[in-house]
């Protein structure tokens, strides 16, 4: 259910690190809780966020949820397909990333949990 090639937060984001960059998205549990996603508020490329800082928000028909950066970093890319097709987050939450960041400290993974621990958290 939850891919083991990445790490998770208790706020229901995932982060997939590759070298000094990482991609961030929300978990299947998060999209289920939100329901039909209709809007994703994205940051600008170049913005820097601390670990745990809010980088955007995601909205379903019914609710708004903040998005938090799982690790500190600077945004190098945002997934602009979410502007017109936010519902793809529901269809493929672990495949659809929201932002890509250049990590400030790639080895600073405190607070992240692995797939098994995350699955346990939301079970």
């Amino acid at each position, binding site marked *: 259910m939850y891919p083991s090639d990445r790490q998770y937060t208790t706020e229901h984001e995932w982060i997939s690190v590759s070298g000094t960059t990482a991609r961030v998205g929300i978990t299947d549990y998060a999209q289920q809780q939100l329901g039909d996603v209709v809007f994703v*508020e994205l940051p600008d490329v170049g913005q820097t966020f601390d670990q745990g800082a809010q980088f955007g928000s995601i909205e379903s028909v019914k609710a708004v949820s903040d998005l938090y950066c799982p690790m500190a970093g600077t945004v190098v890319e945002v997934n602009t397909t979410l502007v017109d097709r936010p519902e793809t987050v529901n269809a493929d939450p672990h495949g659809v990333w929201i932002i890509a960041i250049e990590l400030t400290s790639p080895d600073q993974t405190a607070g992240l949990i692995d797939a098994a621990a995350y699955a346990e958290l939301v079970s």
Partner: protein
Amino acid sequence: MTDAPVAAPLKTPLHGRHVALGAKMVSFGGWEMPLQYSGITEEHLAVRRAAGLFDVSHMGEIEVAGADALAAVQRISTNDAARLEVGQAQYSALATPEGTFVDDLLVYRLGDEHFLLVVNAATIAKDFAWIRDGIQGVGDAVAVNTSSRYALIAVQGPRALEIVQSLTEVDLASIGYYRFATGEVANVRSTISRTGYTGEDGFEIFVAPQVAERLWGALLSVGAPAGLRPAGLGARDTLRLEAAMRLSGQDIDETTSVLEAGLGWIVGWEKPEFVGRAALVRQRAAGVTRQLVGFEMVERGIARHGYPVYVGEDRVGVVTSGTRTPFLEKAIGLTYLPRAASAPGAECAIEIRGRRVRARVVPLPFYKRPRG
């Protein structure tokens, strides 16, 4: 000090059905209700394109009966109940002496001296007390809270008529809008009302609680091939907002007047007396200073209930209802604007998480069903 005990949420007679269908359940007005089954968007579109099945058993029923029942209803309801024939219903308000809302309601004339008032779930106790006190001294009229005697199931959408018709010998096409008839649906004794809260044609069916599951099951099985889907409170909210139907406690409450809400048409101006009349007559003569309007977002963003609204630099109020609607695929909302800034085309701004985002006043309703 100990905390006051929290009342357990109330459950409708269809609660087990919702759970079995995998609904996401939420607390609403003291009731545990289905928010959604398959998803708000899919359910909303099913109602616009085919039909949706709603459990609205949480709504309250209050009956007023007696030789002076009409006079009693006339006193506490703004609309003119004398215009109702037996078998007819009307939208109305319970108003305060200031002309603001205690609640909105439907008034059904069950008999010459017998009325059924359908009120909102969260306000049943408050409304009942208000009505009971309000009709004191009218004469021979008694109000009874009969909410527990009814389950209420709504079938809404362009295919609602054919779906319900397949389960009843009552000629549904002959029931006019805001009219009702009694008869059997799926062998269940029912009051079938051509009313709803979605902007579509459809029916609201009152039955005894113990037979509600049977009717629900029959409707789902005959309706599913025609596209009928169970629909929850989430879709009910987005559907009613597209149709610009006010939500009591949110768009209308004790701080907003019937006239400000744009509902002067539910005031029986010719009636000599009813609670709120003097204030409303004064307000009509003087003109309202603010008006409920619909808006759509011009810039990207979704307005939500409670977000601040600005005209120029002035904070003028808050969004009373707002969402991105599945059918129109627009971010829309309702708010009260100063009269001078309330004409269609006028601009305002909604503060969304600290940022002011442009919006524009549009005519209501946002959605009007195509009429065949």
